[in-house]
């Protein structure tokens, strides 16, 4: 079975929301007219998010939110219509919904690529690596994530990065689906902590 023809997961399977896009920051209106907006870059497009959408997009960086838990968290934060905010982001491609497990992880890896937002620094113990801004911040990341990170500039998707790594490092001892599942597990923290962003593989690079 290839990635393209894998079956859809049953609706009852747990699904998590993953943020897509690169933050460009707050922009105040010229001459005080209009609203302050937060902009997200997705490929060659720039989206201006409303406060509610921004809240949903940022909260989605926290590990493991599904639609229901994200909506509940937004409601606690005072968002009047959390479902609409989430749907707007899904519709714009700024959130992506995925299942858990090897097959959804393969699909995610095939459809997205990493956008590095920090540089690699050094290896760490336990098979991990340090990524960051030398002299400023350091983040520990998992070994599978790091191998994909290393190939982010030369491959169109995380899946091709994984396959490229496993082809040259048979000592890794991982099948592609196991590596993809580990990647999905290791991806949440670097996404939350600003080490990388995700873009869709099909999206033109800016």
């Amino acid at each position, binding site marked *: 079975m290839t990635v393209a023809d894998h079956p859809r997961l049953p609706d009852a399977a747990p699904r998590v929301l993953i943020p897509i896009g690169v933050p460009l*920051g*707050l922009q105040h209106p010229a001459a*005080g007219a209009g609203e302050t907006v937060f902009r997200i870059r997705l490929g060659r497009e720039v989206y201006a998010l409303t406060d509610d959408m921004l809240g949903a997009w940022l909260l989605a960086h926290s590990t493991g939110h599904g639609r229901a838990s994200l909506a509940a968290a937004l409601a606690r934060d005072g968002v009047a219509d959390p479902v609409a905010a989430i749907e707007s982001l899904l519709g714009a491609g700024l959130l992506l919904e995925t299942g858990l497990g090897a097959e959804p992880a393969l699909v995610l890896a095939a459809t997205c690529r990493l956008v590095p*937002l920090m540089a690699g620094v050094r*290896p760490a113990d336990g098979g991990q690596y340090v990524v960051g801004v*030398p002299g400023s911040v350091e983040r520990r990341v998992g070994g599978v994530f790091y191998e994909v990170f*290393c190939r982010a500039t*030369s491959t169109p998707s995380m899946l091709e990065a994984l396959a490229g790594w496993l082809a040259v490092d048979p000592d890794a001892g991982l099948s592609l689906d196991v590596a993809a599942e580990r990647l999905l597990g290791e991806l949440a923290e670097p996404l939350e902590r600003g080490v990388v962003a995700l873009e869709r593989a099909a999206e033109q690079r800016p």
Partner: protein
Amino acid sequence: MSGPGLDPVLPVGLALGRGRVADTSPHRVANTGGVELLDPHEWQVWSLAAAAGEPRGGLDRARLQAAARELGAERVSSVYYGLLERRLLIETDSRGEWAERVTMHALLSGLGQLDREGTQYALGVIGETPMVRLDAASYDAWQWLPFGPTLGAAAKTLGVAGGVADFRTVTDRVATLIARGAAYLLATKERQ
């Protein structure tokens, strides 16, 4: 002053750190064609080119090589030309021809304006203290120069590269962003 090697030399690629054995593995740099391995002397020249963008706007060929020798790098000339050949360094020129051979990629997250007047902008991690503060023109360079098939094309689209003086400004801004860990260059794919 302009001519081959007389303008700033910039690093190409994203630093990845060393491999699994921290003290003995080669340094790694990601480029469009894959991961490049750099020995300690190559790394010294490459990282010096990266750091030199601030406060001086980058070092030209002779100054970069002299600085590398001062730091103890060996066989500097052959290392330098080897890195140029591998497209891990690029010699800039005042006309901006160099910028047609690379793309620029932003690092860090944009945090946006720090003041209503729009004179100060910040990069970093959302929810944390800003790491890099930029003026409006440098922030524009950070957010818009990645758009385009080449850095040169993006600069022209932005209207910031109308002449030699303009392109020197673009080069200075790119060098500064690289030195501050806010951007990196990649070689365009055609020659990889």
